């Protein structure tokens, strides 16, 4: 058992536990905190996989911005959420959903193990491969080069998307 494997197993268990915590806790704040923990563990996964920039961005954006937003709303609506878990109109859904979730995992794993394996060699080799760029120029530069050379158009569209979201938030936030 190498250090990588050990790290992986620990992270796997921890992230699974915290993910389960998201869906199990009664208190919404606990769920949010659980989710933040999950994001952190995922960031550690990315680190292990060598995507440093993405790991940092994950922590910054997800854990830092999005979850803060969540916590704002959760605490704003906290007073009303106490009684929500009492009357469950469709109690059978709980069990059906759990069983189906297990089935989903099973089927996906089956597909993973019997599907054609992903190509054993790198798609891009030589000077264009990621590891080469990372090794020569650094991680962020590699990310930036890929973003602005291949994905410039999606990048611009994304900024448009953000503008639309801001407009939407402003509209929704107005008084009736």
């Amino acid at each position, binding site marked *: 058992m190498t250090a990588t494997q050990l790290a992986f197993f620990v992270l796997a268990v921890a992230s699974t536990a915290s993910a389960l915590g998201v869906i199990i806790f009664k208190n919404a704040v606990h769920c949010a905190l659980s989710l933040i923990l999950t994001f952190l563990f995922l960031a550690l996964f990315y680190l292990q996989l060598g995507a440093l920039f993405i790991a940092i961005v994950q922590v910054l954006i997800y854990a830092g911005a999005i979850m803060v937003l969540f916590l704002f709303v959760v605490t704003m609506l906290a007073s009303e*959420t106490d009684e929500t878990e009492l009357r469950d109109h469709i109690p059978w859904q709980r069990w059906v959903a759990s069983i189906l979730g297990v089935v989903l995992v099973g089927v996906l794993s089956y597909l993973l193990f019997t599907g054609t394996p992903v190509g054993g060699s790198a798609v891009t080799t030589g000077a264009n491969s990621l590891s080469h760029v990372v090794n020569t120029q650094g991680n962020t530069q590699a990310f930036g080069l890929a973003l602005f050379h291949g994905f410039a158009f999606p990048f611009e569209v994304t900024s448009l998307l953000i503008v639309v979201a801001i407009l939407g938030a402003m509209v929704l936030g107005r008084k009736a």
Partner: protein
Amino acid sequence: MMPLSAYLIMSAILFSIGVVGVLIRRNPLIIFMSIELMLNAVNLSFVAVSSKLDSADGQMFVFLVLTVAAAEVVVGLGIIVSIFRTRRNIDVDEMNTLRG
């Protein structure tokens, strides 16, 4: 390095947990959080495959998913808040006037 399938199975597990969470929670905020969990599971599989294939394209996708998730959260929370303002409760089961 772990084999790719390990990361992919991890991603599948996290995704399923997110799906179950959507189905069994009645607080819309927690449902939202479960959706975020699902998106992150997909992000994990993207990054794993990109590392395996030694290409930056996977990480680009993660970047875009991240941004879209952010925008989505903004709008979604705005909707939930405005629903709360009119109805004064946020149980998803209470919104069943479209029943047949």
